[in-house]
């Protein structure tokens, strides 16, 4: 989710902290001692948002974000596939971009795969890059195969969402990157991680590697994965329907949210909009769970519509853009397509585009196979047996249902660490969560 604001600027107020501690001491030494003991017992995990939708949208408060140590500026890199017929309007996206943060000298290397629609340098990706670099890894950050840049520049079939194809694409690109990095710095061993959909990709990549043996991953860390891609996106899709919104239309609901944010901005006495301002705005504007679900749903829908448009133009499949509209020139207004794309749910895309396309490539493909192969059920026995694969997440993750949780617990057992709160990736930057993540990778 791209909603949670960027907030690396950490503001701690020691004065206020000291004052409150002092007050406790004044109340009585005994009481203070009791409080301290109690606090220590619960000190492991005190993530502030107990509402999973708040957690998902708000993320972690700036003063509780893990500080990864000295900052590194990741290096922007690109892969160009020569001879690839990139549509003219996407010429700016012809190269596949990724970023690296390499140690000086030998180190283990970790690949990080972004979540749905996210780029290699999205806020969460940049954060994970800093964290793993700080822990001594060479880091390679990759965009999600569902991000338009990946679709346009590196995808073999041009239509993301079918996990086996997306994993083929990632695996190929990772082999190329392996060559590039090894030519610059020695690599001691390989690791892989990812969050959200990227976590599912990470598990499939570990599985693929166990068959091919190119990387010999020492560990694969899944952060907040879906269990079934299509079950999870169906939930996200449902938040823009009457099931969530009742009588209100999507249009009215979005307008109401924009009006609330506008009011907040208008009344704020600030010109320089920094990350803290954005965090405060998002957390202070009054939003109930219906609003929060709408925001998550809209964010997801916008990523999906970018992906669907890019896919349709790359394949000229006539799904969004009528054949008569080609060639699309750079001066062509795209708003009509954006509006049409916004009305397409992920499930529409699967049934109307992806499945028929896969059947075009392989007539034996069916809906059940597509869904199964895009879920962890497809590699269940590998996940059960392989100690390499570990999982960290939250039991209140908004993209999981009870069956998904039961699957995670039964398949991973001790290798899964689940927190009671945090929603979907909301606690990913929270100190104790990050420390647990690192401990699990280094196990």
């Amino acid at each position, binding site marked *: 989710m791209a909603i949670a604001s960027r907030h690396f600027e950490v503001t701690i107020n020691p004065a206020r902290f000291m004052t409150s501690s002092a007050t406790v001491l004044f109340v009585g030494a005994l009481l203070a001692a009791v409080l301290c003991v109690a606090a220590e017992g619960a000190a492991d995990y005190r993530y502030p948002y107990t509402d999973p939708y708040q957690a998902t949208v708000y993320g972690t408060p700036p003063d509780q974000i893990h500080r990864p140590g000295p900052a590194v500026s990741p290096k922007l890199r690109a892969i160009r596939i020569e001879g690839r017929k990139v549509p003219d309007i996407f010429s700016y996206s012809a190269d596949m971009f990724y970023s690296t943060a390499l140690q000086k000298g030998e180190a283990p290397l970790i690949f990080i795969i972004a979540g749905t629609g996210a780029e290699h340098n999205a806020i969460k990706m940049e954060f994970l890059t800093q964290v793993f670099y700080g822990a001594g890894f060479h880091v390679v950050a990759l965009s999600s195969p569902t991000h338009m840049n990946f679709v346009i520049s590196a995808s073999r079939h041009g239509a993301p969402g079918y996990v086996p194809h997306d994993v083929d694409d990632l695996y190929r690109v990772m082999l190329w990157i392996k060559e590039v990095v090894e030519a610059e710095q020695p690599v001691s061993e390989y690791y892989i991680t990812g969050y959200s959909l990227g976590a599912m990709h990470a598990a499939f990549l570990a599985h693929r590697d166990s068959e091919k043996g190119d990387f010999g991953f020492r560990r694969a860390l899944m952060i907040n994965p879906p269990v079934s891609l299509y079950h999870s996106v169906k939930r996200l899709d449902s938040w823009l329907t009457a099931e969530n919104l009742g009588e209100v239309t999507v249009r009215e609901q979005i307008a109401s949210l924009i009006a609330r944010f506008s009011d907040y901005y208008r009344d704020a006495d600030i010109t320089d909009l920094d990350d803290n301002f954005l965090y405060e705005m998002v957390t202070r504007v009054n939003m109930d769970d219906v609003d929060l679900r709408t925001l998550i749903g809209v964010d997801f829908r916008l990523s999906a519509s970018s992906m669907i448009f890019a896919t349709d133009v790359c394949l000229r499949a006539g799904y969004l853009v009528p054949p008569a509209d080609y060639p699309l020139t750079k001066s062509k207004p*795209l708003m009509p397509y954006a509006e049409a794309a916004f009305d397409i749910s992920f499930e529409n895309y699967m049934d109307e585009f992806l499945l028929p396309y896969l059947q075009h490539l392989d007539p034996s493909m069916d809906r059940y196979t597509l869904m199964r192969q895009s879920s962890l059920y497809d590699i269940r026995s590998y996940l059960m047996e392989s100690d390499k694969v570990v999982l960290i997440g939250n039991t209140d993750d908004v993209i999981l249902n009870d069956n998904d949780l039961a699957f995670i617990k039964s398949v991973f057992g001790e290798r899964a660490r689940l927190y009671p709160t945090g929603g979907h990736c909301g606690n990913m930057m929270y100190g104790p969560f990050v420390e647990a993540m690192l401990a699990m990778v280094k196990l």
Partner: protein
Amino acid sequence: MACVPLALVLVLGGCGAAVTKRADPALNLEPTGFRTEVNHWPQAGGNDLDFMEVYDPWEPMNRHIYDFNAGLDTYVLLPAVGVYRTVLPAPARKGVSNVINNLNELPVLVNCVLQGKVRKGAITTSRFLINSTFGLLGVMDLASDAPRLQRQDEDVGQTLGFWGVGNGPYFVMPGFGPSNLRDTVGFGGDSLLLYLEMMQVYRLAGVRNTWDTAVAEMVVRTINRRANVPFRYHQTGSPFEYELVRYIYTKKRELDIQR
């Protein structure tokens, strides 16, 4: 003077992505012959995103300018910012930014007056006085330490809007980015105010070669402005970036005029 940064850009420029080339005929994105049976072609009429529509009769031209600006950003401005960041340490850059912001307080004040905004005008005046004196000619932004003395933002475009002048057509200014007809006129007005102010400043400072100094100042202002805007072209991850930027710009200006 002005040639030094330009030369540095040319020497260190092009420090974008390091590209690795690969060839694989299977990845050439050849036509597959596949067509979907169902389609979602654009249709006229009500829609969930119609609030994002902006009056943009010059759109084809604007989109070309947007594309040009993206190229300018990638090949000139961002490399220049890179050099700037290498040459000047962060505290010095902060000082430069503060001095420029301080000089910009005067046009802001003029616009506060033109709109009869007393409180904003008073804040801007206080800021200018404090920062120009105790802040050592604006190098330090001491005023911002006070919650009630935050920097205000008014310009001629907002003043025109305040007095009822509509947006006019959306317009992407070459080299400067999103605007509209009213704000482009306003930009001219603000530039004139700054010109008048800077001529006085040069006179007070005893600058003889005003032309070269003005060019150098322009370069520094441009690089400083770019360094302080986090926006990057083609980083929204959306093929509809032009539309998103157009909407956000228009909405923000609408709110700024009301502020």
